[in-house]
Every structure is written in structure tokens, then in C-alpha cells.
């Protein structure tokens, strides 16, 4: 294609305006045939109305006045950084941008603002929003409640042409027949949420999005790349091919190696032309977090059960290939026993059904121990916390359904009605449950399992209890992120319940003291996210647990692991987006 430089130039004629004239006599056919003459006052008032509604290339945003009432009702406060983002995308960036705000700063809100602003300005009519399936309904709810936009969620076969505002999951959209239908259409605006799923150009996801015809284009992701500069190149090139040259020239100019950039000054200014990343800082703040770690002593039978299960897990784990129980199941069992005997009992029951004679005996004895435990000491503390703050709404998080059921029935007995929220619920049931929790004063408590932790926004609540700890620090951050995000106006309280003498106690200490997880606000430390994505904490904890012979040895090994992680976290990682974008 070299040598065809003429393609850069358009002709004068191509940029003469194409004018389309109306057929006035047909437009006013009915009135003319019926001689439906209106009054002079109506005639002039009509012109004044049109004058008030003229759309212009304004500096100021139309949404700020148009949606003022709607936002008051929905409790949405447009933040300065969001308004500035919308202006920049529509102005300088000509409607093509990567919105890479840190988690919790309202990328969805910014995208909603841009969509609505473009529609009000008359520049956009046909919009396609691609999101992970789990977020379709939330997008629809946000758009209708906060932007007075009423999208259609595309599922099976549909007449894509008929709807102007479509939300579709990436998985649905990439089915061959739907993909073809979508790629035949021309969209004024395409929005892709969680756009880091497009980092690989050979995937269907990428090819689908690249093949869509679009005028304006938004990609939303808090993590445009992780350590690999090629991912960054791919994403930027999807948005605006050529912004970073082609891959050959990009490698030459900007890559020292896979994870190390050069000419960062130039790269930075190219990135800033197409990417906006708002971060927490002096201008964007959240109310503080208060974290209380509440240790509690288990009852003697609880302690005995914990020890028995841990011994079993340790023995099985050490048998390695000869083990009859899958190591993942062992990990689950160990996590369950930290949560409650009820959670552990379920896995034990399943193991028992599969186990041979000799193993079966051991498991049955464990089950008997579990069966004798009718209560869980943690619940006393939960009830105490609830008693002390009778006006507050509380989110209680647990990883396990059995624990969730137990908490709920215990609260029921104490006269505290509670809602449950878990991944198995249908989307409409989830919406309804959240709505109830928000508006029904009878329900002070909602008990969520981990599956319920992603993507839902519960800023109206500011207190949470971690009944057990997820062993993956990012899942813990996600839990906190449900209530500690933009829109939260009050201090946030986080209660961590830890049973003394359990692995959880060590884990929490590690997360609090070494990772400083509760101090940081997520995204503030991309490095930590990256770190735990690459290094599974669960596996390392399990290894420590399995190899330690005595309590003391466990303490020592855990301390060593903590030191190791602390040191690794302090090491300068690979390339990081925030370093790249900062001057």
C-alpha cells in the first residue's frame, strides 16, 4: 500500500455538503387537506419552541440541566472529574476514548453521560453497549434510572435493526449469526465495558468489536493492560488504529522488552490523546474506612472440630498423588471449616459418599463432630454488633451458602429478618432483593455470598461484616468495593470476624499488616492487583498449612511467607499504567 499517498487527501467535492430537502407538502398533507389552520399565536409560538430546542455545538453539557431533576431523584451527584471527562471525550477526543478510571470512580456513569449527551446533541441515535453477561441488567438499570434512557437487552434472535439502544453480552454478540447481523449495521456509538477482554486480537471478542461499523467508540476498563505492552498496543489500536503506529513501529519506538517501555514521554502523550484515567487523589476522595478486627475464642468443641478437619486436610494434602481427595476440595474444606461447621459438613458429606472404606471412617467421625455443633460462636458477635447499631443497615459476607443459611436462620430466631443474596438467583430476583434492602426498613441485613459480590452497588449501606475471609485478597477488595465507592457519603465500617487459632487469623494478619489491604483503596495500587493475579495466595497458604508440623512451625512459616510477600510487593514490578501516564 506504500506509495499510495493520495489516499490521505480528500477532494473539495467530497466535502461539499450533501443537502437533503423535505417534501413539505407531504409533511403537512393532513393539515392541508383538512384546512387545519392554526392560530397566528400558535404559529409563532411553534417557531419560538423550535428556537429553544435548536441543537448547537455547545461548550457546556446539556445533560447537566436536562438531567438535573432525574439525578436528584436517583441521588447521583456529577463529580467534577466525570464532567471533565465527558467534555474531553466529546471535544478533544472526537468521541473515541478509553475510559480507564480506577475501579469505583464511575466509569459507567461517565459512559452514560457521554451516551446521553450525544443523543441530546442529536449526533447519536443508534447505540450498542457490549458488557459481560452479568452486568447487562445493571447497565440497563443505570441507564434508565440515571439517564432516562431505555435500552433493550438483546438475548436470542432479534431484529437488531428495530432498536436504537441495545445492551448485549459479549458472549451473545459473538455467536456467528448475531455477529453477522451486528456487523451489517452501522452504529453511531459503540461502548464496550470490561474492555480488557479485548486484549488478544485473535479472539472472537476482539474480531467482533473490530468489525463493527461505528462513528463514536468508548472502551471501558480499569486495567487496559497487565505488564505486557503488546496488550496496550492492541487495545489502543482497536480504538484508533495507527495511534501507536503499527506493531512493528511500536516495538521499535516504544518497547525495550515485553514489560519495559522506552521513549515513555512520547508514549505518554500518545496515550493521553486517547485515554482518560481518573485516580483517587486530592481531588477525588472517598470517605474513610474504619476497619475493626474482632478476634473471638471458639468453643472447645469448635476448636476440636477445627483441629480434626485441619489434620485431615494436612494429611491428605501431603499424600500428594496418592491422596484420594482432590487438593482443590481440600482447600475448599479448609476454607469452609474457617467459615462454619455447617459449610464444612456439606463437603464432608460429599466426600463420604465417594470415599473408600478406610477414608470413609475418618470422614464419618469428622461428620459426627460437625453434627454435634449446633451453633457458631461468631454469630454471638454478629448479634452483638447488630444490637449496638440498631439503625444501621448491614451487609454480611460469607463465601458459603451453608453458612449463609445458618446466619439467616439464627437471625430469624433472634427476630432480625434478613435477606439473602447469592449467585444462583435470577437477575430479576437480585434486583428485587437489592431494592428491598434499600427501601424496606424491616430488612437491616443482607447476607451475600461471594458470587453476589461482583458488580452490585450498595452505597446506601455503609457497614459490612466479613463473617469469613476469602483467601483471595482481590475478592475481599471487591466485597468492600460494594459499599466503599463513589457515591458513598459516610464513613465505611468493616468488621472482620476471626476465630483465634485458625489459619484465618494468620491470613488476616498478613492482609492487614503486610499487604495493608484495608488501608488502600482499590486501584490505588494496581501493583497489588497485578501481584495477586499472578501469584495465587490460596496455593501458598495451603502449602504452609500442609507442611507445618506444629503450631509454632505454622506461625514461623506464615511469618516467613508474610515477609516474602511484603518484599515482593515492594519490588518494582513490571511496567505499570499509572507510571506510564504520570509525568
Amino acid at each position, binding site marked *: 500500500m506504500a506509495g499510495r499517498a493520495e489516499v490521505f487527501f480528500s477532494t473539495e467535492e467530497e466535502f461539499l455538503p450533501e443537502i437533503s430537502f423535505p417534501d413539505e407538502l407531504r409533511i403537512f398533507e393532513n393539515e392541508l387537506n383538512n384546512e387545519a389552520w392554526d392560530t397566528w399565536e400558535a404559529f*409563532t409560538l411553534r417557531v419560538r419552541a423550535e428556537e429553544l430546542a435548536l441543537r448547537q455545538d455547545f461548550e457546556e453539557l446539556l445533560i447537566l440541566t*436536562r438531567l438535573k431533576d432525574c439525578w436528584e431523584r436517583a441521588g447521583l451527584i456529577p463529580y467534577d472529574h466525570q464532567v471533565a471527562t465527558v467534555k474531553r471525550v466529546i471535544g478533544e477526543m472526537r468521541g473515541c476514548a478509553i475510559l480507564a478510571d480506577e475501579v469505583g470512580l464511575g466509569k459507567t456513569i461517565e459512559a452514560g453521560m457521554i451516551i446521553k449527551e450525544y443523543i441530546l446533541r442529536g449526533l447519536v441515535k443508534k447505540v450498542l453497549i457490549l458488557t459481560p453477561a452479568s452486568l447487562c441488567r445493571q447497565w440497563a438499570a443505570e441507564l434508565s434510572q440515571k439517564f432516562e434512557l431505555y435500552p433493550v437487552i438483546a438475548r436470542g434472535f432479534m431484529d437488531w435493526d428495530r432498536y436504537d439502544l441495545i445492551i448485549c453480552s459479549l458472549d451473545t454478540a459473538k455467536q456467528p449469526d448475531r455477529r453477522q447481523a451486528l456487523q451489517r449495521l452501522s452504529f453511531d456509538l459503540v461502548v464496550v465495558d470490561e474492555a480488557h477482554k479485548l486484549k488478544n486480537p485473535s479472539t472472537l471478542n476482539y474480531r467482533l468489536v473490530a468489525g463493527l461499523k461505528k462513528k463514536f467508540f468508548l472502551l471501558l476498563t480499569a486495567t487496559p493492560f497487565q505488564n505486557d505492552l503488546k496488550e496496550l498496543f492492541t487495545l489502543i*489500536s482497536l480504538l484508533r488504529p495507527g495511534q501507536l503506529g503499527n506493531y512493528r513501529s511500536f516495538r521499535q519506538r516504544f518497547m525495550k522488552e515485553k514489560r519495559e517501555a522506552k521513549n515513555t514521554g512520547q508514549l505518554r502523550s500518545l496515550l493521553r490523546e486517547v485515554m482518560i484515567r481518573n485516580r483517587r487523589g486530592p481531588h477525588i476522595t472517598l470517605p474513610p474506612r474504619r476497619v475493626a478486627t474482632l478476634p473471638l475464642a471458639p468453643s472447645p468443641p469448635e476448636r476440636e472440630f477445627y483441629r480434626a478437619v485441619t489434620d485431615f486436610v494436612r494429611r491428605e494434602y501431603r499424600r500428594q498423588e496418592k491422596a484420594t481427595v482432590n487438593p482443590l476440595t481440600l482447600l475448599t474444606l479448609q476454607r469452609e471449616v474457617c467459615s462454619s461447621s455447617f459449610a464444612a459438613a456439606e463437603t464432608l458429606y460429599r466426600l463420604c459418599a465417594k470415599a473408600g472404606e478406610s477414608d470413609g471412617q475418618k470422614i464419618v467421625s469428622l461428620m459426627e463432630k460437625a453434627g454435634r455443633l449446633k451453633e457458631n460462636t461468631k454469630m454471638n458477635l454478629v448479634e452483638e454488633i447488630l444490637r449496638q447499631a440498631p439503625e444501621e443497615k448491614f451487609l454480611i459476607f460469607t463465601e458459603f451458602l451453608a453458612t449463609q443459611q445458618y446466619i439467616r436462620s439464627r437471625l430469624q430466631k433472634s427476630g432480625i429478618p434478613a435477606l439473602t443474596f447469592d449467585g444462583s438467583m435470577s437477575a430479576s430476583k437480585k434486583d428485587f432483593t437489592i431494592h428491598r434492602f434499600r427501601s424496606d426498613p424491616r430488612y437491616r441485613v443482607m447476607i451475600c455470598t461471594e458470587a453476589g459480590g461482583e458488580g452490585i452497588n450498595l452505597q446506601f449501606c455503609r457497614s459490612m461484616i466479613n463473617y469469613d475471609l476469602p483467601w483471595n485478597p482481590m475478592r475481599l477488595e471487591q466485597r468492600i468495593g460494594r459499599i466503599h465507592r463513589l457515591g458513598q457519603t459516610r464513613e465505611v465500617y468493616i468488621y472482620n470476624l476471626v476465630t483465634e487459632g485458625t489459619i484465618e487469623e494468620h491470613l488476616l494478619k498478613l492482609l492487614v499488616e503486610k499487604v495493608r489491604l484495608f488501608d488502600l483503596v482499590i486501584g490505588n495500587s494496581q501493583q497489588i492487583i497485578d501481584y495477586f493475579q499472578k501469584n495465587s495466595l490460596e496455593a501458598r497458604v495451603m502449602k504452609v498449612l500442609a507442611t507445618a508440623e506444629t503450631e509454632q512451625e505454622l506461625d514461623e512459616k506464615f511469618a516467613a511467607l508474610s515477609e516474602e510477600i511484603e518484599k515482593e510487593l515492594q519490588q518494582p514490578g513490571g511496567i505499570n499504567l499509572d507510571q506510564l501516564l504520570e509525568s
Partner: protein
Amino acid sequence: MAEKFPAEVIRRFVLDTLELSGAPYRIVDKVIMAEVTVEIPAMFFDPPRLEKQTLNMVFTPEDAAGYPGAELVSWGSYRLNWFIEGVKKRGGLTLQTAEADPAAVEKELPGLRAGATAGPVRKVNRPYLAVNYVLSRYADTLREDLVSLGIDMTAGEIHEDFLAILQKAKMTPGIPAGEIARPVLSPAEALNRLHQYLAEKILAWDPSWREKARRCYEEELICLYRYYHEGNADERRVFNERARELYEKYRPRVTVRPVNLGFFYLPEFVYTKKDAAFSYQPLLGRRERVPGLAITPRNDKG
């Protein structure tokens, strides 16, 4: 934009809209309290359920602070838009006879009479077609303008800002009782001429808006080229597709949308002076010789 429409303009518009719709209202200090009929909910029922609602409206932020619970109606607000959408259902077509200010006419007439050498000074009603248009110029941005045109159906002359001319007149609905000049153009022909006129006008606009679009387009093309220039045949095809998309985004387009149509009869006084026909058109503020203008003393529908 907000400053282009100060609070008083918005307030006036709301009051006139209430007047036109016949909705009862009261003005209490700074607040307009109006009882309006709204469709609830507009989306689900056909026909929608109609319900009376009381609106308490203020027009400046200061007044909004002074009257808690009152709704601030300002440019771009939901409520103003609601009124605008309502008004758009009215005033599409009108037929009016215009009268110039009698005092001004009275002042001119004695002079005309004195100058007339043959016959009396006759009053004739000349038919005009008035069309108000919204012109939308699109590239990757949009700008809209309102243009008000009037065309003389007897001679084809086109006047800009025609609404401003009409607003000087006193209107009486319907066809005038007196003499009417015979139209030469059919409405379709008249509209055709308006389109030609608009096309010329649009091409004569300051071209900076489309030059800017062209510049942006070329910048985007250069960028695109950097990505694809070493590509194979398949990538060349993708390049061409992308380039077409970009052209679609930036190419300039103008759509012409009629807001409303009006048939107007404007007064004209004609007289003969030394074998030539003269005409005085008070609303256009001009007196001119009209050679060969046929004025048939007949009543004729516009």
C-alpha cells in the same frame, strides 16, 4: 446557550404556552402556578391516562432558593422541554390576512393619492407562502439554525427573516375580503424555489465548518494509514472499509426540516402614475415601480 435565553424569555414562553393551551394558571409573586393535564405514564397506555397536575414554576436559581418545592424552569430543563414538545403539536399550518399599522398607512396614503394620475389607489392583498426551516449542519458535530423565508406567490421574490416582517402586522385569520392578487406560482413551485434559494445559501455559508471536518478526516486517514500501510491485500480491504467509516463520520451534510407553513396575504397599495404601475407595500416598507405586473381585480383563493 443559557445566556442566549435569559429567564424572562423562558418565562414568557411558558406563559404563552399556558395561554395557548388554555391551562388555568396564576402568578403568585415569582411563581407561576399552573394546572396542566399530563399523560401518565406516557409510555405504557394507549391512550394514556390523563391526569391533572399542578406545576409550581420559577425561572431563576435565586427564586428557586426562595420557593422551596417550586420547579426551576430554565433552558435545557426537563420541564421546559416538556412544554416545547407540547407546542410542537401545534401551529404547523396557518392562513392569515396581515394588516399594516393603520397609522403608518394613513400617513402615506394622502401622498399616494395626490401622486396617482389615473384612477384611485387600490388596496390589493398579495399572497405569500411563509416557511420556517431548521437547517442542521452535520459533520462530527451538529449545529442548527432557524431560517424564516417568505415567497411572493405572484412574482417569486423571496424574503429572509420573513417572520420578523410578519410580526409587525396585525393578523386576521382567513382570506381577505378585498381584492387578491393572482398567484402565479403553485405551492409546489414556490417550495421548489425556496429549496434552490436555500441550496445557494448553504453553499455560501462560511466554509470553515466543513474545512475543519475535512482536516479531521485527513488526520484520521493519516493515522489509519500508519497502521495498515505495510499490510497485505486483506488489510488493504480493511483499510478501505475503515476509511469509508471515517468519511461517514466527517462528511458534511445539511438537512432541511420545515417547522411550519403559513399562507399570508400582505397588503399592498397600487396606483398608476404617468402610465406606470406603482406599488406601496407598508409591511416591507417599500414603494416601487412594478413594470408589467398584472393585477387582476378578482377574488382568488391563495
